[in-house]
């Protein structure tokens, strides 16, 4: 989402041979009505793993919301187009992730996503029954992506008031039209990848998508695929809007080898494929390799070498990339196939990302517990505010009066709190807070909860596994580390580097914590029959008779009087004399 497309095309004169500078895609050429771009970014990670991020973008200048139905689809997938027009979707973001992004080892991802499935949708303000539309939409998406999104219902849907703002154009920010839900248990596998690939114009037949083979993609440390749909400006004046469909796929491969030797990977080793052509429908098809950590070329060896370099601001950091343009035949060389190869060294130290977070459940026993959320600000001198969003299922009954926020041992009062209490079996807790993180500190948010005892039909088939609580979301504008960069190893003109310019001084970042697995008090389901029998017996026989014995007094009954005596008694009664 926040991968800024400001690819600063610089002449990069530091290399002697300036071959043909890369053509700038966007500006001068008049755009066709629809347009498709594909791109792969490869970043060797600090820990020795390798991060590959695919992005496929389809732009289409059309208006789904107009009365006349859009029926002619070219690059844009029809299934999604129909979803947009039928449900009056303004923005749709869906991600499927298997694994947890390890910020301490890998730094920041280009596109953060929580483990499991995440879906958030902004509806047009013309929608009257948002909840009904949302329900239908999740069921439809469930079919499109072959996922269990139909499990999204009111008990796990929230309406965040501040954390999820529209990313496209438009000025409606009334959170009545926003729905956000996560399914932390969702498992992502081939059956989700195939429908995702089918949305691409070239499918997996040509272009970068040929690399997306599931046997390799799911043999990785982290896998995340997403679809983002939003309206964007068509030109700088924003007179017309077009729809952007961005399909992204992020994957981290584990290249751990014991010992300190150089690591090596190639496209073939990662994906068991090489590239032979760009997608013929794509207007641009590029591979970027992040070589920032290696300005002198000591640690990295990239082959085949390229002289096409590009710089971009990524997550507040100025990165340098080698660029391979797949639309140019020359890229594929004489063998007509591109198999990039990198060798580099890794280090085992952990990173200190400026902002990261972790979360865990404290306490023991099955009655109460405490959720701890730790947010680390590792910036040496800048404090910055973060928005924390917590959506906790109703069966953890939060005691909101126990909410504490502490930084450096002192109480840290959030400047904004939005809390929506849960309703049993209807809706989850929603807690949003704006917290200022002091520099170089850990901020701890704790809240106690009580574990509810569910009805026996509400337990999942594997109740002893535990129940999931989705990730907290931390959204923030983080001060850029470029502003921190005081050493002048990079050659910059002096006039450009005095005031940190606005774009670079801070950047948006979203951090997801790990989901929680919480055990609830669970009956022993293996013996409901025994329990029913025992309970019935105890109640019927034991309790009944004991109650009888305790409450009654027993006397020996007189033998019933004979007939004569009874008659005599009747007569005595009539006479008003006490009976015999």
């Amino acid at each position, binding site marked *: 989402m926040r991968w800024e497309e400001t690819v600063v095309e610089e002449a990069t004169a530091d290399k002697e041979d300036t071959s043909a500078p890369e053509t700038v895609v966007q500006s001068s050429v008049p755009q066709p009505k629809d347009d498709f771009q594909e791109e792969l970014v490869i970043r060797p990670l600090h820990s020795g793993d390798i991060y590959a991020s695919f992005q496929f973008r389809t732009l289409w200048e059309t208006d789904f919301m107009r009365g006349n139905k859009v029926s002619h689809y070219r690059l844009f997938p029809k299934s999604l187009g129909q979803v947009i027009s039928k449900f009056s979707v303004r923005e749709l973001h869906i991600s499927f992730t298997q694994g947890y992004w*390890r910020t301490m080892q890998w730094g920041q991802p280009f596109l953060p996503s929580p483990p499991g499935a995440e879906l958030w949708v902004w509806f047009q303000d013309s929608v009257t029954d948002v909840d009904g539309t949302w329900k239908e939409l999740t069921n439809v998406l469930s079919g499109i992506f072959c996922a269990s999104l139909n499990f999204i219902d009111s008990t796990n849907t929230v309406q965040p008031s501040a954390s999820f703002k529209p990313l496209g154009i438009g000025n409606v920010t009334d959170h009545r039209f926003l729905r956000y839900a996560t399914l932390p248990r969702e498992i992502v596998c081939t059956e989700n990848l195939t429908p995702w690939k089918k949305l691409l114009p070239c499918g997996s037949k040509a272009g970068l998508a040929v690399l997306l083979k599931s046997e390799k993609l799911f043999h990785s440390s982290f896998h995340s695929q997403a679809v983002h749909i939003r309206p964007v400006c068509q030109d700088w004046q924003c007179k017309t809007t077009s729809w952007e469909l961005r399909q992204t796929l992020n994957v981290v491969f584990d290249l751990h080898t014991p010992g300190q030797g150089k690591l090596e990977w190639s496209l073939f080793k990662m994906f068991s494929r090489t590239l032979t052509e760009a997608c013929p429908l794509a207007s641009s098809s590029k591979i970027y390799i992040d070589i920032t950590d290696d300005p002198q070329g000591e640690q990295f060896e990239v082959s085949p070498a390229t002289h096409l370099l590009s710089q971009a601001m990524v997550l507040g950091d100025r990165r340098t990339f080698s660029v391979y343009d797949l639309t140019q035949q020359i890229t594929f060389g004489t063998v007509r196939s591109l198999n990039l190869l990198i060798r580099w060294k890794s280090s085992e130290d952990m990173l200190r990302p400026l902002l990261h977070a972790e979360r865990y459940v404290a306490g023991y026993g099955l009655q109460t517990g405490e959720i701890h959320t730790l947010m680390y600000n590792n910036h040496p001198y800048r404090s910055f505010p973060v928005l924390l969003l917590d959506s906790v299922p109703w069966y953890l009954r939060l005691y909101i009066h126990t909410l504490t926020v502490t930084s450096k041992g002192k109480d840290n009062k959030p400047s904004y709190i939005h809390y929506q209490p849960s309703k049993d079996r209807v809706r989850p807790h929603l807690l949003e807070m704006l917290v200022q993180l002091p520099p170089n500190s850990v901020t701890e948010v704790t809240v106690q909860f009580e574990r509810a005892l569910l009805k026996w039909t509400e337990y999942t088939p594997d109740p002893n596994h535990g129940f999931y609580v989705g990730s907290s979301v931390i959204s923030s504008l983080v001060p850029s580390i470029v502003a921190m960069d005081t050493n002048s190893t990079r050659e910059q003109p002096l006039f450009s580097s005095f005031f940190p310019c606005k774009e670079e001084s801070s950047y948006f970042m979203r951090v997801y914590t790990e989901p*929680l697995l919480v055990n609830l008090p669970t009956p022993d389901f293996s013996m409901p029959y025994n329990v029913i029998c025992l309970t019935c017996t105890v109640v019927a026989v034991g309790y009944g*008779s004991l109650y009888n014995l305790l409450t009654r007094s027993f006397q020996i009954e007189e033998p019933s009087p004979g007939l004569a005596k009874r008659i005599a008694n009747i007569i005595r009664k009539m006479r008003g004399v006490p009976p015999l």
Partner: protein
Amino acid sequence: MGLLSDPNRRRALISLLTRLNAPICVVCYMAGVAWFMGLAFEPFTLRTYMSENAMGSTMVEERFPAGERALGTGREFSAHKKKAGGMPVDWLVKTMQSRGLEVFTQRFSRRLPFPDEDKERYMVKGTNVYGILRAPRAPRTEALVLSAPCSPGDDNNQAVGVLLGLAQYFRNQVFWAKDIIFLVNEHDLIGMQAWLEGYHHTNTTGMDWSPLQGRGGSIQAALSLELSSDVVTSLDLVLEGLNGQLPNLDLANLFYAFCQKIGVLCTTQGKLQRNDWDSVSGYSHAVQTMMLMVMKQASGRPWGDHGLFLRYHIEAATIKGINSFRQYKTDATTIGRLLEGMYRKLNNLLERLHQSYFFYLMPSLSHFVSIGYYMPAFGLLALILLLRALDLWIQLATPPTFNLNPPPSQMSSPGVLSVLTPLVISHLTGVALYTLPIHFQEIAVEHFPVSETEAVVLTAIAVYTAGLALPHNTHRGLFVPPFNGWKVLKLVAVLYLAVLLGCTALINFSLGFILALTLVPVAAFVTPDVPKALSAFIMVILSPACTLLFSVFLFQELQEMPVSFLDGWMLYLSVISQGILDHALYGSLVYPLVALLVYPCWLLFWNILFWK
């Protein structure tokens, strides 16, 4: 129930129960003991079987190859340990990092309430080092733990070596679905307590620890490894944890299944299982194994580093390598393969271990006695208390006909008071027994030539003995106790004991049963009318403190390490100090239970004996 609602038959039944009360009690007692002894007889027990399907049928192939290298790492660890004079933190961090783990450390410190003379420690400061192997594509929600203590001296180096070897091997495998935490804890249980409290962010015992940086979600199972030699003859499985808690039986089954598969001799309580169950020696072997388990469980202390996990509902066991003079030796590669197999099966778990039993006794590793089978033994003993209580109730409800002088209304109020006074006083004595030893240690050390530890233990014994003098004082200054006052007191005491033992036995059967074995006869026979001197002697013999003393001797006998009386006495003193320490350090409940509840209850009976 028709039987009870018919007054005639009820009267008959009651008179039967009152007339035959003593013989029925004796029979019950004998039957209880016989039942218990029968539990070890193999035809009466069940064979263990794997209940958890996720671990049952799946096949795993163990391929751990690097036993020798692991032992080399262990030697390296030992050298660095010697150089550092304790935990070689830097070396461990570096080694774990080079094996591709996320490594974190935790510092902790703890001042013991009084010096621990067994382990020679008072101010404990240490560091735990743990590395997390992150499972690919797992969202950090579940974890398994493998721990090895960093012991002083030359112990357990091999365990750390095997742990690091396994970490290296596991790192290159792709099948992990749960994070695996490799933990090397310093100062054995104290370090483990600090780590667990840090992991769960609780503080039950007032320890200082630095917060943990990395976590792996909810821990599903844990194994602790103790290995002090390059080759072992057998592996011993230790299950007894804090307060007599046991891990799910499936964990023991898993260990047994892999020992069978790989061909490693395995024991429990250090006893091999025998096939000749029908012979006397075979039966007595099984009884010994079971008795050892009962005594260990009754002690309520963690018998390995795993013991503290159980509080957090984490199934855990300790695997101990034993090197005896047997011919058949097992090398480190085989042990590594065994652990690999166990971890792969645990990795397959979809739910926490919950299918099998949590309450069981094991007469051998392949047989177990479940709660349904052993509870009747205790039930028969507890029945005696109920019968006596019924008897007393009837006696109180039908006052002797010749004595009609005090009207019932006058009799009741001094009765209650006469019960309340001994109750309060004996419980105050219990509170004194609980609090005084630790608080008075400084004064005791000043005035007597003893060390702090001795001071604590001797104060405890002194308070305990002083309690025996109470009955002479409880009645002084009170009104004349009513004629049947002791019966009211005894009724209360018997019911109190029944509830107390019943609750204890539900939580920790062994403790409840051992206490019942000694306290029930006391409770049954004591009246003011029995011969004082003899009864007093028997009562003292059957008091909780003497029970502990006998248990110490019996335990040594069962372990085939008999001790002389003097050594036994020293052991007894150290057991008391360990009990108090276990309570202070890990929250073991046996000491407060005995001091605050069982001992006062016994004092009540003592009171009855000396009722005037």
